[in-house]
């Protein structure tokens, strides 16, 4: 498809700098990855409110918590694998339990990290963060949606996790979209099958929808940009209208977005479902697009899952 691409990280950096101009309470922390996460741009604009914690993510999360106790709105960034895994207990104990105003915005999530290999490819961060009470979990689909999401969560007190990828991703959301925490958006309407994508899998779903449409299938594509709180209304409406659902995530299907959607639909409007995502294995080094194909997270697999799930419709 003829996409234009944009970086989620770049949009994060831009949103932070804009927030910093009007909001004196915004403080930003990073753990020696500020160039990659783009928090360095905030650091350049507001050096007195930026603290590089060095390669010490656990201390960074605790420090973020203390700043929030002191009335600050804190953004703490690192790679997703470290922000959620290395510092899990600090996020749970010092941020989520006391319900503090800390935004954990992590980049380089998922397999598209690429060459760094499995040590850096977190396929379980959504599961980890989603399981913690008080935590809001957001996975924007593209660069502009990342920008809007960051602006939205800055105004919303409490702990929040935002997942971003490394690579530039296709712009899939409408220009004048308004980001609402907890609200999924329908990017393409249809009635035969619903493709529920999250993160950059939304673009993959839209690509699959084109292929399916050429075969005469009417496809709905949902951008599930908030994982928690889950928009069960939009999801169950999609299930009711289409009678079949495919989820697509760049994450382990075990305890991932597909699992959450399945649980929500089981309680509201159960329909046949297929889950596209990482099949409970560790990744490896490679180019992003190679890895997406290698591990079954390309449009081809979404199309196959859609055909399979429609066959299961009664």
């Amino acid at each position, binding site marked *: 498809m003829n996409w234009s691409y944009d970086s989620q990280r770049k949009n994060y950096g831009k949103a932070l700098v804009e927030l910093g101009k009007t909001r004196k309470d915004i*403080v930003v922390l990073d753990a020696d990855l500020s160039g990659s996460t783009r928090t360095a741009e905030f650091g350049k604009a507001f050096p*007195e*409110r930026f*603290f590089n*914690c*060095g390669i*010490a993510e*656990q*201390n960074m*999360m*605790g*420090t*973020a*918590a*203390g*700043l*929030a*106790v*002191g*009335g*600050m709105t*804190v953004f703490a960034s690192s790679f997703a694998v470290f922000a959620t895994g290395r510092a899990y*207990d*600090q996020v*749970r*104990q*010092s941020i989520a*339990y*006391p*319900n503090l105003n800390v935004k954990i915005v992590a980049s380089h999530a998922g397999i598209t990290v690429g060459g760094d290999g499995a040590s850096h490819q977190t396929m379980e961060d959504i599961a980890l963060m989603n399981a913690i009470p008080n935590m809001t979990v957001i996975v924007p689909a593209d660069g502009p949606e990342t920008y809007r999401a960051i602006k939205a969560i800055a105004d919303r007190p409490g702990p929040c996790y935002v997942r971003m990828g490394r690579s530039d991703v296709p712009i899939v959301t409408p220009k004048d979209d308004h980001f609402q925490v907890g609200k999924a958006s329908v990017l393409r309407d249809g009635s035969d099958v619903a493709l529920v994508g999250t993160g950059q899998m939304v673009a993959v779903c839209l690509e699959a929808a084109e292929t399916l449409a050429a075969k005469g299938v009417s496809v709905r594509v949902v951008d599930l940009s908030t994982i928690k709180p889950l928009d069960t209304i939009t999801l169950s409406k999609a299930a009711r209208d289409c009678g079949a659902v495919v989820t697509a995530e760049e994450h382990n299907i075990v305890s991932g977005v597909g699992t959450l959607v399945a649980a929500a639909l089981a309680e509201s409007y159960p329909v046949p479902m297929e889950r596209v995502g990482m099949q409970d294995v560790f990744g490896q080094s490679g180019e992003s697009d190679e890895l997406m194909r290698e591990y079954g997270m390309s449009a081809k697999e979404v199309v196959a899952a859609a055909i399979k799930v429609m066959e299961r419709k009664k």
Partner: protein
Amino acid sequence: MGNPHPFRCFTLHDLNEKTVKELEKKAELLRRHVIRMIHAAGSGHPGGSLSSADIVTALFFEIMDHSPESGSSLDRDHFILSKGHAAPIYYAALAECGYFPTEELITLRKLHSRLQGHPSRVKTPGVEMSTGSLGQGLSVANGLALALRLQGLDRKVFCLCGDGEMAEGQIWEAAMFAAHNHLENVICIIDRNGLQIDGRTEEIMALEPLGDKWRSFGWNVLFMDGNDMWQVLDTVGMAMEHRGSPTVIVAKTVKGKGVSFMENNVGFHGKAPNDKEYEQAMRELGGSP
């Protein structure tokens, strides 16, 4: 007793024999609360509450500028209990300071109580940070100290740590961060009672030379007898005068201090006294069961 310390107390006014006597009596009262609470709960951590009772008393009744009325304000001194299992002594101090009724103390660890087994910021009036998973309090104290500095508030953040939790790597991450950022308003006090659940700290995971470790991390290091009220007041006073770097005070204490059969007895790290032990403990602490 008199003042055995060669230094003058710089910041604490009207410090005299009478004040110290009153504080010592207050510490004894808090110790009785601790024993009563843990006995009523049937579980809890008496050892580390009793060892730190004199430090907590000095902070809450003499040193820190705080009150229930200024509870949510930032323009006050702050306290983070990194060794969250010493919650009973913290609650006893908060209740005696008027943050909640002392009658509530015996609800410790009970269903629907505001007094959780470990401190909770969202449940208990006066508790500034939830703790319990060890090694995390100092990072929080640092963040709070930064927030105060950013807002131009010249206030202290006291962080009370256990010695066992010095084995947590995050403590040393936080130690580096505080020195790097010259957080002179952070005062970390280590309750050096020498015992942890499985035994003596020096046998489980040796800490000494503990002061040298902190000094090499760029901290101002002081030592005191943490069960001697004069020394506590004097040493913390010196720490408050220090500028340019954070201060750590290694406070030599006796685990279970004040109750003969609990003193230096690792068995009472996390065990409630039975009825007979409770009665004896209360008598030893100058009270009646």
